[in-house]
Structures are given as structure tokens and as C-alpha cells.
């Protein structure tokens, strides 16, 4: 992104790296820093370099100065990288593992734990859950994670996003919805559709039949239009 306009491979590459990606990068920076800090950065930058010819380095120096932190890593990941940014989330609910039958108790003596009858895949039993957040692209960004449980609780997590994945475990709780970057701070995420996981499977089936029926209707009419030419 930080190269002269004439050095791009083609017009599409120039357009993408000069307009689309810089806008999304600055929006992401604003998401991470907050609206107030970003305004101060832009105000300082605009006042300091008005009627001048600032470079990318001048902007990075302004960001570091206003925030009082080193944000070089952010620009290395965005301005000076062609990597993709894509975080995804998956969750799994499993039946809680319990001790059944004879087993050692806390004092070392054998204790009989009751064996529960019925179907082991019973939907009503207690659940252990895992939520896995994956970094599918090369760009590393800190992300927030929000997890909703069947009992109405909500948990907020955070991850520095440096590894390829991070797993969160929730014993005795069933996850119904999990979202990575719930406040949509990472505007650079190329696939926001995989940022949300929902437990309900019925929605996918109903949505699929609804839209496939509509597409089929289009196709039926297209077939019928063929008769005009025969």
C-alpha cells in the first residue's frame, strides 16, 4: 500500500490500495483507538502538516505521539503488508462428562456415582462448550469475543490475535451464540460473515429452502421464456 501510484501492478490494484484499503485501515485504527483519540490524531496531523508534503512515516509518528504508545506494529500489518485480515469463530456443545459407577472419591475411598439412564445424546442434559477463534489471514489484530449461553449469561473475552487460533472452554454451559469482534472494530476483516456462530441449525435449513425456492422460480420463468424462440 505504501508505494508510489505508478508502481502498482494494474489499475485495480492501484484503486484498491489507494482508496479502499486505506479507508478500511483508518476505520480499523479508529475502532481500536476510539473516536476521540482518532480525532485528536487527525487534527494534530492536519494542523502540523498543512501546506506540506507529509509521508506515511509522518502519520505513524503522529499516531505514536498522540497515543503515547508504539503503534508501529499496526502499520506493519496493514500499510506495509499485503496480508489478508480474517477472523472466524466456531463453537461446539458437548454433553458434560461425568463420573459414573465406582470411582475414587476426594478422600481416596471408592464411592458409587449414580449411573444416569436414557439417551446419552439427550438435548436437555448439561453441556460443556468450547469456542474456537481462528485467524485465517496473515494480519494480526487484537479482537474481542462475546459469548452468549443458553441460561442467558453473556461473557466477554479478548485475544491478542497473534497465534493461529485460541480456544475458550466453558464447562457446564451451552453456547447459543458466539461473535468475534462484536463491535465491528476490525473493518479490514474480509469476511465478516464468519464472525458470528449461532447454535440454531433450523435457521440455515429454512433460509436455504426459502432462497432456493425463489431461485427455482427464476429458473422456471427462464425456461418458460425459451418457448418464445422455438
Amino acid at each position, binding site marked *: 500500500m505504501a508505494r508510489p501510484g505508478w508502481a502498482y501492478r494494474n489499475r485495480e490494484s492501484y484503486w484498491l490500495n489507494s482508496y479502499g484499503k486505506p479507508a478500511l485501515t483508518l476505520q480499523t485504527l479508529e475502532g481500536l483507538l476510539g473516536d476521540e483519540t482518532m480525532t485528536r490524531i487527525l487534527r494534530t496531523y492536519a494542523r502540523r502538516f498543512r501546506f506540506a508534503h507529509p509521508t506515511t512515516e509522518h502519520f505513524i509518528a503522529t499516531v505514536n505521539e498522540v497515543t503515547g504508545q508504539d503503534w508501529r506494529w499496526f502499520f506493519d500489518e496493514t500499510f506495509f503488508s499485503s496480508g489478508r485480515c480474517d477472523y472466524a469463530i466456531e463453537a461446539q456443545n458437548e454433553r458434560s462428562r461425568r463420573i459414573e459407577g465406582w470411582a475414587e472419591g476426594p478422600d481416596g475411598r471408592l464411592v458409587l456415582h449414580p449411573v444416569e439412564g436414557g439417551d446419552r445424546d439427550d438435548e436437555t442434559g448439561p453441556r460443556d462448550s468450547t469456542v474456537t477463534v481462528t485467524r485465517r489471514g496473515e494480519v494480526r489484530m487484537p479482537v474481542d469475543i462475546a459469548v452468549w449461553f443458553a441460561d442467558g449469561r453473556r461473557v466477554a473475552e479478548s485475544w491478542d490475535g497473534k497465534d493461529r487460533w485460541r480456544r475458550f472452554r466453558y464447562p457446564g454451559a451451552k453456547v447459543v451464540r458466539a461473535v468475534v469482534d462484536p463491535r465491528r472494530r476490525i473493518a479490514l476483516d474480509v469476511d465478516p460473515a464468519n464472525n458470528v*456462530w449461532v447454535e440454531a441449525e433450523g435457521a440455515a435449513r429454512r433460509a436455504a429452502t*426459502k432462497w*432456493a425456492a*425463489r*431461485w*427455482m422460480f427464476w429458473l422456471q420463468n427462464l425456461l*418458460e*421464456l*425459451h418457448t*418464445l424462440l422455438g
Partner: protein
Amino acid sequence: MRAVLATLGEGFRSVARNWGLVVLLLAVNLGLALLLAVPLTVQLERDLAHRGASVDMMYGFDHDWWSRWAEEQEGFARTFGPDILGTGFAFRNVDLLLRGHLPAGLFARRTRADDAPSDDPVVAIDPAVLALGALYLIAQAFLAGGLLGVFRTPQGGWTFRGLVHGCGFYFARILRVSLLALFLAALVFALNAPLSRWLDERALAAVSETTALALGFGRHALLILVLILVHMLSSYAKVIVVREERQSAALALLSSLGFCARHFFAALGQYLAVIALLVLLLKAWAGVDARLSVSGWTSQLLALALLQLLVLGRIALRLGLLAGQLELNRTRGR
């Protein structure tokens, strides 16, 4: 005008007496469409499973999800997009017709833009969809003889065996008529290409926006009108093949040309009346469709019934026109 209404009225009465034929044609149409719709359903369900977009897609249309999903698609699934919503399907289909993609992409102009891979699902219409269309055209050529044979009998009534016999008996002749009609359509598209270029240049050079729009719409309207005339010739040729037991498709087409020239306004009036009815049907359907919020299974069933009703109505109009043409040829033909 009276002849148009009388013959069309008789045509629709004939269709009403043989309403099972409309259902049969709907079954053929639906059966072919299901060949691609079922795999799409499975794919959509798999791709939406556990996605937050599944809920959004259930209640509305998640454009973000779709745009990302569409980028990854190969084949006929690429043709799924929000432009088929509401009456958008009709505009997309007419657009495909005018660009020459029907049937089987035979008449599409090979420009540099078309050679390059395109993201536009209309331009990049999938070969599977085009092949299905070509198959449908052959199926309709097969059925035409049987249908005309049924409409020829004044008392109505038909059997499946009798229908299939009529279809097989006239199939070769009617297929030849259809191929000749396709050749005429090819000529129309070949002549249309330089005319379109010339009119587009005039439209680009036009000072007034109104002139540019009139030229653009005018050339499309002209193409549709000429295609209707080709269909009229082909349709009356099929009627003549069945009514007069003609062997030669070329002579039947010539006879059809003579008949259409002698009764041009009555023949064209039938088309205009059927198109007007089709527009009314589409408008009524769109009015109901816009008020139906589809999410659960009950509303989905209702929506599906509504969609199929429109296709059924469209097929009934086509058959009504065919029976009306038979009636006009019977009353006015030599």
C-alpha cells in the same frame, strides 16, 4: 378486435376444458428446475449452517454474506443473487433474452468484455442453466404436436396415451419448424448487432438524455417485436402442420407467413392481449408477494404456492395463445 377476443376466448375455454395439460406442463417445468434447485438448497444449507447470516437470510437478505459467498461460487450457483427478488426475475430474464443468451447462448455477441471472465451473473450465465433451457425447448417441441392435437378436437378431453402419441407423431416436423425458427432468430440477432452498435453510438452522441433513453429503449422494443413476429410465424407453422397434416416444415412456414400477412392485426392482437394479461398477472402476483413475509415453514409453503401459481398462470396463457392461434387459423384459414 372482435376476432382477437373471440379466438382467444375460445382458446382459453379450450385450455379450461383440458386444464390437466397446464398441470402437466407445470410438472415438466418444475421437474427440470428441481434438477438444479435441489443441489442449490443443499449447498446453501451447508454454507449457512451455524452462520449468523442464516438468521438474517431467514428473515431477509444478508447482502454482506451473499457478496462474499457469490465470489467463491463456481457454476450455476453464481446465478443466485438479490436481483431475482420481486419482479427482478422478469427483468433479468428479458435482459438475458435481449443479449442473445437464450437458447444455449447461441446468439450472444462475442465482444471483448464477454470473452473476459465476468462477475456479472447475467453475463456469466452458467452452461448448466443454458443446457437445461435447450432441453426445455426440445421438450416443448415434443409436446407441441400433442397439445395441438388435443386442442384440435372441439369436444375436449385427452388421455396421456393419446397425448404422447400426438407428440411422437408430429415431433420430427415440429422440431424442423423450431429449428427454422431458431435460424430466423439467429438472422434477427445478426442484423440486430450492427443496428444496436449504430443506435448506441447515436445515443452516446445525443445531447438530450431523453433522446438517448428513447434510442436505447427503442432498439430493445424493436428486437422484442421482431422476436414476437418470428414466434408468430413459427407458432402458426406448427398449427398448420397439425391442422393440415403437412409434411414439409419449410412449406408450413411459408404458409404461416402468408396467413400472418393476411391476418396480421388479428394475429398480433392476440399477442398483445396475452402480453397485457401477463403484465396484469405479474402485477397482481407482485402485489401479494410484497405483502408476504417469508420465514417459517408455513409462510414458505404459501410463498411456494404463490410462485407456482404464477408459473401455472404463465403456462396457461401460453397454451391459451396456442389454442387461440389454432382457432384463428381454423376460422380464417383456407
